[in-house]
């Protein structure tokens, strides 16, 4: 087992109205499982990733993580505009690799090559286009080693060519890690995942059969 959620409830109160995202939810994932998460906009998919990653606390229940876990890739914007792309990536590497300069150097090389933003890697991030930012943040997320990767809309970043590249990298990652991915692209989930959660009105429905889950989801809307 790599992840266990027991009796998890989470709600937000917006303008006095309680919005239940998860209600007494249980989930167990094994190593190398790939979990797809679907639901309409605002259903709570990103909140679910936040809960799993530990940056959002549940109202009740416990989450046990039996391995290292990434931040929700694709949803973070932790770059400091006045720093260069390289300095920003160096900072994130330092959080995970400490003073291991060799590991940091190798990771930076991989990120630079993957992001493919040329000399901009050494320029302040505030001078980047939105696409360049996405490429870099995706790169840094992929090349820091975790046991569980949380991916929020893998195909939303960059241009067509980059999306292909990102998807390829994701498939490689899937071979050795557990993946939890949020996506509106149901074909992508069908191809990549072996388990599915459909977050619906605060009551997530879990499927061991991804195809059946996607059919149910499609038929419902």
């Amino acid at each position: 087992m790599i992840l266990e959620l027991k009796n998890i409830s989470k709600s937000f109160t917006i303008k006095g109205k309680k919005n239940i995202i998860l209600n007494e939810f249980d989930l167990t994932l094994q190593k190398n499982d790939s979990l797809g998460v679907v639901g309409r906009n605002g259903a709570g998919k990103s909140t679910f990733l936040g809960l799993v990653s530990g940056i959002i606390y549940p109202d009740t229940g416990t989450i046990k993580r039996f391995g290292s876990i990434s931040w929700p890739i694709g949803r973070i914007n932790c770059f400091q505009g006045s720093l260069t792309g390289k300095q920003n990536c160096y900072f994130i590497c330092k959080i995970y690799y400490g003073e291991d300069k060799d590991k940091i150097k190798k990771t930076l090389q991989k990120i630079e090559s993957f992001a493919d933003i040329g000399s901009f890697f050494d320029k302040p991030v505030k001078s980047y286009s939105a696409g360049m930012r996405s490429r870099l943040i995706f790169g840094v997320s992929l090349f820091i080693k975790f046991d569980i990767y949380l991916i929020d809309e893998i195909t939303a970043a960059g241009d067509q060519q980059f999306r292909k590249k990102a998807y390829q990298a994701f498939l490689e990652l899937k071979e050795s890690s557990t993946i939890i991915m949020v996506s509106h692209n149901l074909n992508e989930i069908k191809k990549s995942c072996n388990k599915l959660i459909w977050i619906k009105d605060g009551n997530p429905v879990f499927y061991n059969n991804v195809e059946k889950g996607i059919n149910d989801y499609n038929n419902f809307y």
Partner: protein
Amino acid sequence: MINKISFQQKIKIKIKIINALIYRELITRISKNGLGVLGIFGESLFSILIFVILFSIIRRNTIGGLDIYIFLICGIVTFNLFNSITIRSSNGIEANKSLISSFKNLKPIDAVLSRGILELFLYFLLFSLLIILVFIFKEISTLNNINLIFLSFLNVFILSLGYGIFLMIICHKFEFIKILLTGLSRPIFLTSGIFFQVDSLPQLIKPFVVWNPLVHIIEKLRFAFSNDYIIDETLSYSYSFKFSLIFLLLSLTLYSLYEKELR
């Protein structure tokens, strides 16, 4: 296992995070101010320059037997260290919001701690450089007790952390406090003894000053440079250390109660 890591591993993770945050903070400040490393010390150097000009006009060379430059450096650098840590801490969550909401292991308190450590290092460096310059150019070398210098910086660091964590929590819960911060810091500034010697104050005024632990720290720091410098009998390290430690303990308790809300 993330949820069953040992205390030692937790410390290792914390050190990595603090280290990374210090790197980010330092590089950000250097790249932002346009003057490089010099820009970091700008505020303190400017304050010292103003006071030096002011005291040159009134032609004072010493206060309480202590060289005027050393007197001023002790007061201004110490107060600016305190002020810098607390002001930056009050804004710690806002300034690091994207990081705190992205990285699970990065807690709001890490922002305060890393900024505090960086400020301590930078201001101690500035203090040492200025004192060395005074020693060289004024051809004096009065050093009474070097341990008192380290103790003073340690004390002001503990005090600033306690106050900084407290401010971080209340500024997050009650936004309007940020607007009042400058006003709230005035009494601390005026009573911290930056430009006066407590012993020379009238008895009537002393009770309005000695409540402030900073004045105890600054006066002891001055005493570290000259045995002749008279410390008022109401001042003691015992008071400032106890005050700082109790304040830090209370702030940490408050923090542990509100940590989840601060994310």
